[in-house]
């Protein structure tokens, strides 16, 4: 599980995490992502980087489903603290091969208590 705690663009953590996630998926690891604290801003809908001259890598999150990465957990508390809701997030989806490739949401809003349980079940947690 990859823990994402930083907002995008201000530091390189978000982009680096995404790169490592894609590499891990290419090596057929069972990958999940958690977005907590300012990390929730990584998957906010409507990012436009024209004004700061940086690459808008938010579109890459849409590719995660194609890499069989469909467990994206978002802290409900972190969203609420920032005045955000599930509606402010990108509609990230994957196609379920066990259900006739039906398109299903990859993002799941969880409480911090649920998140801590998920973390305890992981073999490895990498923090960014």
């Amino acid at each position: 599980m990859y823990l994402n705690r930083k907002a995008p663009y201000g530091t390189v953590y978000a982009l680096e995490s995404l790169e490592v996630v894609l590499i891990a998926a290419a090596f057929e690891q069972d990958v999940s992502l958690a977005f907590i604290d300012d990390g929730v801003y990584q998957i906010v809908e409507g990012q436009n980087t024209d004004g700061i001259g940086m690459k808008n890598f938010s579109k890459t999150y849409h590719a995660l489903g194609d890499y069989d990465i469909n467990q994206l957990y978002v802290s409900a508390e972190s969203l609420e603290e920032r005045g955000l809701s599930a509606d402010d997030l990108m509609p990230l989806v994957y196609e379920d091969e066990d259900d006739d490739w039906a398109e299903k949401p990859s993002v799941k809003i969880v409480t911090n208590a649920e998140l801590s349980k998920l973390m305890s079940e992981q073999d490895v947690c990498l923090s960014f």
Partner: protein
Amino acid sequence: MLHTVNKSVFERNSLQSCVNTIDDSSVILLIEDGVISAANNTKSSVLADLAAEGRVYALQGDVDARGISSKVADNIQLVDYEGFVDLVVEHGTAVSWL
């Protein structure tokens, strides 16, 4: 004086330190991850008084990059890079709160 803050209010105490320290004629410009502090959220009270006095600005490009333009508090003024330069010219000495 002009004070720039480039860290999120949720991650560092630089904004709070800035607010605690500046004089009555100073203004704050939020840049980079600092623009997260411009959105309406549970930490809005840190800037509420200064914003009400029209003394808080945020850099438009950084706001747009993070997808939070619809969340910015009404009394925080958005500026582009030219506006940034104008603030520097108008307010003289600039201090970066990192």
